[in-house]
Each structure stands twice: as structure tokens, then as C-alpha cells.
């Protein structure tokens, strides 16, 4: 019975994925700027700034479909398992790697970093938001959590690619219901790696600078 249902579910996930990427493209005309890398198959961790729930679908939509299959967003289990619809969209449409942010709610054997490393060992690329939470401040970035450093240290062969999502704050500010159909640009920078004798804080500062450098220049108008 389970195998009988698996095929239509996978088909439905494909269709929903296509619909989401078309909707995102129609609404925001989102476009990629491959400034530091080429859109080719290579194992990467795309780490991005995070201001809105629309961020992850934006990055996902600009990836060419053949790359999309092997790219898995790292996402919060408490958000994506809240109801049946999310549990379908998160794990099945986006193929998320779910991690639990709340230590008290974790199952005995749940180690978030182990889930992430397992996904990397399977050959997947990842999308992560190293700020941990949505940035509601005026600062361009919140301080990064240690996860990015730990990944870079444990799997040094994987490229860490800074990914800046521009304009999402204007498209959908917190508390607004109607998204504005402005043009969103996703900029991919040159990959970085953890240096041989680089400590955690120095690396995270370097990673944050590499990401902030991709933001459009000029004063806020």
C-alpha cells in the first residue's frame, strides 16, 4: 500500500514544486547572479541572509532544475512539521534536511549536525541560513551560529558559497500580508573554506563579510 501511494506523492511533490517556482518567478521575476561560481553540479553549502520565509523558495527557484534535485535546504523541524501540509511541502517538495532548534524537544538520538553531515556524505548540496533566525533588525546580518564553521571543518572539500538575497525586505516586510511584485536578485559569491589554523570566530567573521559584500552598494534610498 505504501509503495502504491509513493508514486502519486512524488508526482504531487514535483507538481507543487513546479507551481511554487512558477509563482515565485511570476511575482518577483527572481533572477540569479552567478558572480562567483558557475551554475554547475558541485557539492556546495549555499549560506544566505535570512529576512523572510520567502528566502528559501527564492534560492530554490533560481537554481536550474537539474541542480535543484541535489540541493537540500536545512530547515527547522518545529516549523515544517507543524501540520500535514507543511510536512508535505518541507520534506517532500523541497526535500529539506530537518533539524530541531529546541534542545529540550530533541529526541534522545537527534544530533542536528549529524543529520547535516549525513546529507553531505550522501552527496547533497545544502542551503543554510547561518543567522539561525530571521533578521528583523536594521543591521545587514545577525551574528552567525557555529554550524557553518563546524560543517566547513568536518567536510573541508565542500565549497561554502555566500548567497545574498536582495529586496525581500521590501517585497514582504514582517507583518504585511500582500507581497509586492518587485524584482528580487539572488547573488552567488565566490566559495570560501575554513583555513587550516583558523579559529571559529575569525572564520565566521570572514564568512559574514564575504556575504555582506554581495549586498547592492549605496545608501538606502
Amino acid at each position, binding site marked *: 500500500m505504501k509503495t502504491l501511494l509513493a508514486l502519486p506523492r512524488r508526482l504531487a511533490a514535483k507538481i507543487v514544486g513546479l507551481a511554487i517556482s512558477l509563482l515565485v518567478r511570476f511575482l518577483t*521575476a527572481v*533572477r540569479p547572479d552567478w558572480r562567483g561560481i558557475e551554475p554547475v553540479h558541485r557539492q556546495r553549502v549555499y549560506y544566505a541572509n535570512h529576512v523572510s520565509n520567502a528566502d528559501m523558495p527564492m534560492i530554490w527557484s533560481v537554481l536550474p532544475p537539474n541542480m535543484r534535485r541535489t540541493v537540500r535546504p536545512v530547515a527547522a523541524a518545529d516549523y515544517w512539521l507543524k501540520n500535514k501540509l507543511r510536512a508535505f511541502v518541507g520534506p517532500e517538495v523541497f526535500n529539506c534536511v530537518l533539524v530541531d532548534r529546541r534542545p529540550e524537544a530533541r529526541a534522545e538520538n537527534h544530533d542536528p549536525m549529524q543529520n547535516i553531515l549525513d546529507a553531505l556524505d550522501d552527496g547533497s548540496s545544502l542551503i543554510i541560513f547561518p543567522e539561525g533566525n530571521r533578521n528583523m533588525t536594521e543591521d545587514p546580518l545577525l551574528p552567525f551560529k557555529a554550524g557553518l564553521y563546524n560543517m566547513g571543518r568536518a567536510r573541508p572539500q565542500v565549497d561554502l558559497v555566500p548567497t545574498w538575497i536582495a*529586496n525581500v525586505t521590501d517585497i514582504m516586510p514582517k507583518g*504585511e500580508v*500582500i507581497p*509586492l511584485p*518587485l*524584482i528580487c536578485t539572488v547573488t552567488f559569491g565566490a566559495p570560501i573554506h575554513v583555513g587550516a589554523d583558523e579559529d571559529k570566530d575569525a572564520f565566521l567573521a570572514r564568512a559574514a563579510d564575504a556575504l555582506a559584500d554581495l549586498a547592492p552598494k549605496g545608501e538606502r*534610498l
Partner: protein
Amino acid sequence: MTVTSTTAELLWLFIATCGLMTALTFFGEVLRARAGHDNPVIETFMTRVRSWWGMVILLTLALIAGKIGIVVLFAFTSFAALREFLTLTSKRKADHLSLALAFFVILPLQYLFVGMGWQTLYSVFIPVYAFLLLPVVSALRGNPDRFLVRVAETQWALMIAVFCMSHVPALLSMQVDGYPADRGVLLIAFLIMVVQFGDLLDFFFGRRIGRKRIIEGISAKTWEGMACGVICAALIGGLLAWMTPFSILGAALMAGLASLVGMFGNLVFAAVKRDRGVKDWSHLIPGQGGFMDQFDSVIFAAPIFYHVINLIYV
């Protein structure tokens, strides 16, 4: 369905344009066969020819579909242009509602009024009602930071991308003596063709014989290129006089005027783009940049063309 004479003329026009486009495509392929597939100038030219094919086919389908087709096509073009414009303007969270109104209420209403032919309404809706309403909505949300700049830029975006653009389909509601209403689609084809060919020939002659830049450092347009472009547009206008209610001389003059105004529009938008530090408005039309890049001259020419006809011929 009986084929009316207007539809038949549109089809002839389409066939002639396709002939021209085929010649351009063939020309590009010959160049490509000689120079190989990695010459950037030829590849840009071919990308543009492909985009032109798309535009010619879309526009012809809309013109044949008649009023609804035209209004819907230009409503979507306005939407794309407004999006490109508002992406670059100043805004705060306090403007969110007024910007949403601009996209989802004001734009559709303007095209509804144009579609219904309510001239008194579509002529004042954005310059009067939207002009006064949107700043109120922004003010009520209470952030005074750069307020005047924000509301002025939003209004400018609406005037250019929606109000001016909507004067192209508004040509359909024009009542010119001795010119059947269903021929309005030919008038639209006339306006777009003379303006776009004028731009193309301005570019061509500007490259060949252009010496004196019109605005140094902002635009590559030259006085020589512009003069040749306008004269060619006038000549083409004279040849296409059969599409219009004008005499041959009148058609040439109207075409020259539309092309001239359009070129100045192009200069204005070059200054706006330079101010905002962008080369193109967006990436949506391959080889051309954005919708605003493709239609900047038509946007400036349309209201002038519309009102001069109103002044002289109605």
C-alpha cells in the same frame, strides 16, 4: 467569421514584417556562418532578433484579438514596467500598502477605464485621484523619513509605467472623422512601428556617422543619429499613411514627432538609470534588458501622439 478589411490589412502587415524579420534572421545566420558561434556582437544581434520575433507575434495576436487583446497585453506590459521602476525607487515599510494599491488596484482600474473607453476617467484617474490618494495612505502609516521623495517617486512610476503606457490602447477609443473605429488597431501598429524603427535606425546611423553626443557621459545618442532616425521614421510614416486617418504629409509629420519625443524619452530614462546606477531596468527581455528599456520611447511618444490627434483631427 468574416475577415474584415482591417484584419486583412493587419495580416498583410504581419506578413511584410515577418519578411523583414526573416531577412534579418538570415542576415545574422550568414554572419554567424562566417564568423563562428562565439562573436559577441553577432550573438547579441541574434538574441535581439529572437526577442523581436516574440514581440511581433505577441503584438499581432493581440491586435487581431482586438480591444480586449490589446488592453490585456498592455496591462501586463505596464505591470512589468511598473515592477522594474518601483524596484529602484525609495520606499519604506510605511509605503507598503500604497505600493500594493498601485500594483493591484490602480493599474487594473486604469486599464479597465481604457477598455471601457471612459475617456474623462482614464485621463484624470492617475494624475488626480491616485496622485492625491496614495500620499494619504502613506502618511497615515506615519513614517516621515524622506516622505516627499518617496511619494514623488511612486507617483512618477505610476505616471510613466501606467498612465503614459495606457495611452497606446487608449488610441482605440479615438473618434476621428471618416476613420472607422475598428481601424484603431492599425493606428497602434503605426505608432509602435515608426517609433521602434526610428530607434533602430538612430542606433544604426549613430554608430556609422554619429559624431556629437547629445548628453556626454549619460547616453551614446548623437545628434546625427537622432536626426537620421527621425527623418527615417517620418519617411516610414509617409509610406504607412494608409494605416492612419492622416494624409501622407500628415502621417510623415506625426511619425517624425512621435519618434522625436520617443528619443528624448530615451534620454530621460538614461539619466534615471544613471542616477540609480544600473545599466538596464531588468533582465526580462533577452538581449534588450527590461520592458522599460524596450518601451521607453513608446511610453513618451504615446500620450503626445494621442493628444496631438485629439487636438488636430478630432
